[in-house]
């Protein structure tokens, strides 16, 4: 996994370079590699507006692509900053605290195990995980999302959030632990029941 993540970032870096040279297909590659992480990050920040915010972010990314300098991981960080600014703009406009869950409560309920197809269960788990993250304090939610979902390394997360690495590390750990506790309580795992020291 470590190898493949590194390989993916190298591939992304190469695609960015070609896109900067005008290669449209390379830009599509960049989009497909970056968009899922951005979207997950934005889901946690702004909920259902994530697609719109991501669209705005990509307009800016497309326009300023020539300014970027760095490798694949750097590009993830650069684009995350752009997406973040758009998301914060939106939050400022609608004056809603981002940690409020944008999802309906039905998503937070346990799935009826057995009568749900694996696919639907996974979709549900996906939604639930992102919904739960939106309930974390904002600094924890962002640190977790940028680390795990966007795939940034520690220094990049710190740069995106404008905080010290130590603070970001602490926030990410606390957020993950709290999230894991919630997931364990709700029995949401990878589809197969999982026991965690009596946490269920």
């Amino acid at each position, binding site marked *: 996994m470590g190898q493949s993540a590194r390989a993916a970032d190298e591939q992304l870096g190469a695609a960015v370079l070609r896109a900067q040279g005008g290669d449209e297909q390379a830009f599509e590659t960049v989009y497909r590699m970056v968009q899922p992480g951005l979207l997950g990050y934005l889901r946690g920040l702004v909920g259902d507006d994530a697609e719109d915010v991501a669209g705005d972010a990509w307009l800016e990314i497309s326009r300023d692509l020539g*300014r970027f300098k760095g490798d694949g991981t750097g590009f993830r960080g650069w684009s995350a900053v752009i997406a973040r600014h758009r998301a914060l703009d939106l939050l400022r406009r609608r004056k809603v605290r981002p940690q409020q869950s944008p999802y309906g409560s039905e998503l937070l309920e346990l799935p009826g195990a057995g009568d749900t197809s694996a696919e639907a269960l996974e979709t549900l788990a996906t939604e639930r995980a992102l919904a739960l993250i939106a309930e974390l304090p904002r600094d924890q939610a962002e640190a977790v999302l940028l680390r795990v979902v966007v795939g940034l390394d520690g220094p990049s997360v710190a740069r995106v959030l404008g905080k010290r690495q130590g603070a970001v590390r602490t926030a990410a750990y606390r957020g993950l632990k709290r999230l894991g506790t919630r997931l364990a309580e709700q029995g949401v795992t990878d589809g197969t029941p999982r026991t965690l020291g009596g946490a269920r």
Partner: protein
Amino acid sequence: MSGDGMRGREREGEGRGVDEGERVRGSAAGGAACPPGGRAGEDRADLAEAALHRAVSGLAIDPAAQAAAVAAFRGARDAGAHRAVRTRRRDDWRPRTAARRHSWRVALGALLAGLTLGGAAFAVTGGRPDPAPEPTPPTTPAAPDRQSDGGEGEGEDGAGNGRHASTAPGRTPDQARSDEALCRSAGRVGGKALDAPARQRLAEAAGGRGHVQAYCARLLAEADRGRGAAASDGQGHRGGIGPDDVPPHRSAQNEGAAQGPDPKGSGR
């Protein structure tokens, strides 16, 4: 499966440097971030991480959204927006290395040196270029103060603006010579910048910070003219300063530098 997520994202030894201490779960092994939860907390963090990874992989890409992004890319490219654009600081995500931090310092040093040299060049040339339009400098009130010939030297006109303020009454010849030394010190290419008290003294003598350059230009031009007769080498070099011309307070460094190129010049 559950354990390979965040660690899988780490990039060891690629210049970002602090990966070891950066691992979120690494902090659970003994960092200050580790609450007394211990093993269970770590497991739950793993669980959450795995769920989030699935969450991201479950996010589908909307073809319409992708098409819009690609269209924006095409438009920007065809408009030339990707060429010849400046990389702002926030666009530079190259890994920070010691070499790059060092290069920042070097760049800063070069900038400071450039400013110093630029200021020196301006101070030296400031009195000489573009003759002022009015051809009658002697009509200015400052004219009587001048001790040398009444000629309209080339340096004279350019310095005209600063003269009212700069020729402060009560500047004795000794003081003027002291100021002159300060000016030379400030203007020497590659020389050290003046310390704050000296700069202040010079500013007071000139009648304000804004007048220092003009004041210095005039002083130096006068000094040159005065010595041009004494040291009659046609090269205009300032190496021909006689020992009695050196103000008593002039630092050895200044003197050495002034006479450096031609040590025998003082004997002429």
